[in-house]
């Protein structure tokens, strides 16, 4: 059974100029044990997707779509009803979470407070907590410290343990490594995998703009552009054989160690993403796509290509060429 099933989810932002169609028709699923990477640039809707599954609050507006968590419908539009699911069944590590730790409380207190709001006493889970701390290589003294005494990497690990303590079925991690140093990034990313391996969580969605990070830890990668899905597939396949022009251009524009300007001048993607207030009809990548043709004026459906589960939304691949 799939841990998460999302069908045609639409979440818009309400602004004074109108509705920003940040997430416009998302359909996908995450299987048990899967770490799905959600990649894209700023404004593509990946954070919106992540957040809407856990805490959908104004100015976000639920417009349409269905979400199922382990077969049960997830009422993301109802904040009250979601209380029962949040943290216990689906949990989110938001961006900048490590800065959201209450600076006036000791770490132990922060844990105790969150558990108390679920009706659980800290004593009951203390041994489990100790073991998790060991797993993420946090010394137990950390419990007696204030957030300000911890480094960025340590705070991030505290937040990770906090978000997974009740073993939620689905964990959504939003840019959890971007504010960290390179060496800590690797440790934290590996920790996410460890959580899955230890079965603390059944499935993970890792949101980031850093595709190379996803190459290291994700099983599948889903690429988003301007509120829509561009491509989804197994990590190896997406990286070695990207089919959607956006994915191809994106990957080829990333500087890699071993590639120098002298030898190979990389190219970026000219232009910028369309405004989501009044998005253009048809394929949203059309304007920047070097291979756009007539059919692209019609919106390409997100289609499954083969039995490996590879999906693309691009007429070049799925439709008729001229």
């Amino acid at each position, binding site marked *: 059974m799939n841990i998460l099933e999302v069908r045609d989810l639409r979440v818009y932002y*309400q*602004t*004074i*100029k*109108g509705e920003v169609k940040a997430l416009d028709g998302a359909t996908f699923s995450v299987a048990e044990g899967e770490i799905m990477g959600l990649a894209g640039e700023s404004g593509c809707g990946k954070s919106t997707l992540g957040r809407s599954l856990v805490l959908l609050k*104004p*100015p976000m507006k639920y417009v349409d779509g269905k979400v199922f968590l382990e077969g049960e419908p997830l009422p993301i539009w109802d904040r009250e009803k979601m209380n029962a699911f949040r943290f216990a069944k689906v949990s989110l590590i938001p961006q900048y979470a490590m800065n959201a730790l209450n600076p006036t409380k000791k770490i132990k207190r922060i844990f105790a407070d969150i558990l108390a709001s679920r009706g659980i006493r800290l004593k009951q889970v203390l041994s489990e907590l100790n073991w998790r701390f060991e797993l993420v290589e946090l010394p137990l003294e950390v419990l007696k410290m204030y957030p300000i005494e911890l480094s960025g990497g340590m705070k991030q690990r505290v937040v990770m343990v906090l978000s997974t303590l009740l073993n939620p079925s689905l964990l959504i991690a939003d840019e959890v490594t971007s504010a960290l140093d390179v060496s800590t990034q690797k440790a934290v990313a590996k920790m996410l995998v460890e959580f899955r391996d230890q079965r603390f969580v059944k499935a993970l969605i890792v949101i980031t703009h850093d595709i190379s990070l996803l190459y290291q830890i994700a099983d599948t990668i889903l690429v988003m552009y301007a509120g829509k899905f561009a491509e989804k597939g197994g990590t190896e396949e997406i990286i070695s054989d990207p089919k959607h022009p956006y994915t191809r251009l994106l990957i080829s524009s990333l500087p890699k160690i071993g590639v120098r300007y002298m030898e190979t001048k990389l190219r970026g993607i000219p232009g910028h993403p369309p405004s989501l*207030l*009044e998005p253009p009809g048809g394929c949203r990548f059309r304007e920047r796509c070097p291979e756009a043709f007539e059919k692209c004026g019609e919106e390409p459906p997100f289609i499954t290509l083969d039995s490996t589960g590879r999906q693309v939304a691009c007429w070049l691949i799925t439709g008729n060429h001229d």
Partner: protein
Amino acid sequence: MKKKPRKVKHEFLYFAWRNWKLRLGLLVVFFFVLLAIVGPHLTPYEPWAYVGPSARPPCKEFWFGTTMFGQDVFTQFVHGLYPVFLVGVLGGGLATVIGTLIGFTAGYRGGWVDEILNTFTNVVLVIPTLALLLILAAYLGVRSFFIQAVFIGCTAWPWTARAVRAQTLSLKAREFVDLAKISGMRPAKIVLTEIAPNMLSYLVMVFILQFGGAILNAATLDFIGLGPTRGISLGLMMQIALLWGALPLGMWWWFVPPGLAIALLVGALYITNVGLDEVFNPKLREM
């Protein structure tokens, strides 16, 4: 049918007008200002003149009734509004200016200048203003509203200095200040042309708070008898009323209007401030 997004020319004014707190607050303040200007012409009486029977409750002739001495309360009321605004603007303005100058300098220069100014601010903060005023009263024979305004201005600025210093420190750390420095701008010019304009919204709110605070401060001083030795203000009205037994005698029309007016005015100013904060700070806006 597609819905066209509304064209918004001035996002700022849009929010400013839509904000009910701002509208309500400004309306109330404007009402009192109008009353202060127009009021004295609405009444045929002089504030200190003995024009009627004493201790009369409100009636057609005397809209707010009469005092113990037969003076028209309404006339006193509308004449008493003007000094309230005077002291508020002058005292509040002076406090804002002093606090801003000290806060700016301390925040921007840092180092020992900051230390010295901080110490000075703290000293002024802990000076018991009441005791100071009593001493001053003993030396100054006659006190005017102007002196009162100056006194308030010179004692109410410390929190403003602290707040402005904090703002300056945060703005100073912004990279556009660094950019101005490597563009060869002199420090004074940077403060005037880069930092100050950014703080304008903050300073407006600071002034409104000081304005309201000065009114309250003045009313309190008047009420306990440390007000000006001449003239009439709302606070003085209340002082005289209570001195002459208005409370036990049930002459509510003598002290309730001035008290209520002060409460409404200061309250309106604070609500305006909250509204302004929402206008200036997009994150606080309700959609």
